[in-house]
């Protein structure tokens, strides 16, 4: 019977052409949207490597150019912040704190590996405690690094793999310029702070040494607050800090809020695409439904004949559902030819698993759609009285 249906559809390919193309395109659109969603979902399920709970973010920017004065103010501010009983930990950093709309990167080379690009995070020793970062190998920064010859860095596993492969990274020296070398002192398994929906990139932490560095102003200040610290404390802290830094702009937000607004960058287009896709699907469903309906009316006599030669009404219903599935299969096979190029040619560097999953899910949805659209018209077809269908004047 399945062969019979394929033959029937194949011989009717001209009249089924439109439906097949429609299914072909919806499959591709579904495939694209699902790849996008699955890609984001896959990233979302990966570990971040830090905890944003009860972490507050302060943005500090001086409004005057007097460097020496600003450096002094900066020192006073971090000391004041640490002295609040509500604050557990605090660390300066660059503006690329987790979920901020800011990125910094640099290229580095080690032996044969040239210009490996990596995210750079300038942080103080206490950053580890603020963000709950765990070091899996070697150690984090500490006061013992104050007198070290080289700039200590802590790298993530991704950078370790890209730069050193299987070699032990601890103690490796990376030349940066004529006077500077970085020394790898530790490795964290993960640090993926730009967005929950972005894949992890190679990254390293670079130590801020306020004693030594008398030039840099750090815009970011992250603090870990004790449970219960709320708006009242926020107001008090801003008031106190403004007293120290009269001409600075101070903004406070929480990492949770930053996470939410960063997530919107991905979820809003995702929802929009899903909506557009949904409308498209409804359109295709209506088309499918209409064509089926038309087909069944056009094939009234055929239905009567099939009943006459021994088809039960159930078999008529199954035939029409089967035909729609065969049409869907033709459309899917065409779509698959195209969609399979993505994982095979590794387009966009997405993991091929995501592509195959999207292909599977898109095919499933198309079949489901086809069945849902086919059931009602097919049932109607199965209810046609054979004598009426065969009636001839």
């Amino acid at each position, binding site marked *: 019977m399945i062969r019979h249906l394929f033959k029937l559809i194949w011989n009717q390919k001209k009249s089924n052409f439109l439906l097949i193309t429609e299914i072909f395109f919806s499959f591709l659109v579904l495939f694209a949207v699902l790849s996008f969603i699955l890609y984001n979902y896959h990233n979302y399920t990966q570990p971040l490597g830090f905890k944003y709970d009860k972490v507050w973010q302060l943005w500090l920017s001086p409004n005057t150019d007097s460097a020496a004065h600003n450096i002094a103010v900066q020192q006073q501010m971090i000391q004041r912040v640490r002295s609040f009983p509500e604050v557990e930990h605090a660390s300066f950093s660059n503006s690329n704190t987790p979920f901020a709309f800011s990125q910094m990167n640099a290229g580095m080379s080690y032996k044969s590996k040239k210009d490996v690009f990596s995210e750079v995070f300038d942080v103080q020793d206490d950053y580890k405690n603020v963000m709950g970062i765990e070091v899996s190998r070697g150690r984090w920064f500490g006061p013992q690094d104050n007198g070290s010859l080289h700039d200590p860095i802590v790298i993530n596993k991704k950078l370790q793999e890209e730069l050193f492969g299987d070699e032990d990274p601890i103690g490796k020296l990376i030349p940066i310029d004529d006077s500077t070398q970085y020394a790898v002192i530790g490795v964290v398994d993960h640090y993926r702070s730009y967005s929950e929906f972005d894949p992890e990139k190679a990254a390293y932490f670079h130590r801020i040494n306020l004693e030594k560095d008398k030039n840099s102003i750090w815009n970011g200040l992250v603090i870990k607050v004790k449970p219960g610290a709320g708006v009242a404390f926020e107001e008090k802290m801003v008031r106190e800090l403004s007293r120290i830094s009269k001409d600075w702009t101070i903004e406070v937000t929480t990492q949770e809020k930053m996470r939410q607004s960063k997530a919107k960058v991905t979820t809003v287009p995702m929802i929009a695409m899903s909506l557009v896709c949904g409308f498209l699907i409804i359109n295709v469903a209506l088309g499918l439904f209409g064509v089926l309906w038309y087909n069944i009316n056009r094939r009234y006599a055929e239905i009567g004949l099939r*009943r006459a*030669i021994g088809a039960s009404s159930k078999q008529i219903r199954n035939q029409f559902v089967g035909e729609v599935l065969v049409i869907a299969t033709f459309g899917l096979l065409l779509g698959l030819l195209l969609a399979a190029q993505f994982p095979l040619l590794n387009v966009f560097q997405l993991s091929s698993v995501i592509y195959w999953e999207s292909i599977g899910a898109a095919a499933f949805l198309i079949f489901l759609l086809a069945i849902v659209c086919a059931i009602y018209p097919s049932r109607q077809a199965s209810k046609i009285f054979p004598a009426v269908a*065969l009636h001839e004047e």
Partner: protein
Amino acid sequence: MIQLTDIEKVYRTKTIETVALNRVNLQIERGEFVSIMGPSGCGKSTLLNIMGLLDEPTSGFVAIDGQPVKTHSDSKLAKLRNEKIGFVFQSYHLIHDLSVVDNVELPLLYRSVSASDRRKRALEALEKVGLSARTKHFPNQLSGGQRQRVAIARALAGNPEIILADEPTGNLDSVMGEEIMDILLRLNQEEGTTIVMVTHDENMALKTNRLIRFFDGQQVADSMVIEAQI
């Protein structure tokens, strides 16, 4: 082999009620070649549909081989149609998107028959109607007479005990009509297939064993055709 008892068929639409069959009693015996004649609209097709289990009478009983079919399920009726009955229609009712041989295979599709067996039996049936050279053609590449021969082959492929033919020559000229009639006669005489045929052609009716005349939903005559009349 088919018994009709007190068959009544009434078509009801919103405005009118048509009595298509009015208390028809009829028994078709195995091996008979019965022809049915009567003016247009007198209920001949309705009668054939009821005999062929395509339609239910409004009242009365239909029995096949002594078995009443009234309580049969849809699939049981379908099975009976498939195995015992072959239909031939005035307008052939071939499926245009299928080749000749695929059309002939159709009844076997609703049985558990292997694809190769199906093909074999379809080709045999086509040979019986003299169309072995046209198996890969499509219906629109054939003449009316050839199409009707395909339809007969389709009825034969299922190896039915009875063929119900509703004006099988109605759309054909007399030469082609004769060809079809010859095939049916041969089937009846050589293979013993029971045939019930509706026709408007007195000459063809006279070639059969038994002639039933209908008028306004009622039998008005049922007589053996005597050789001498031909």
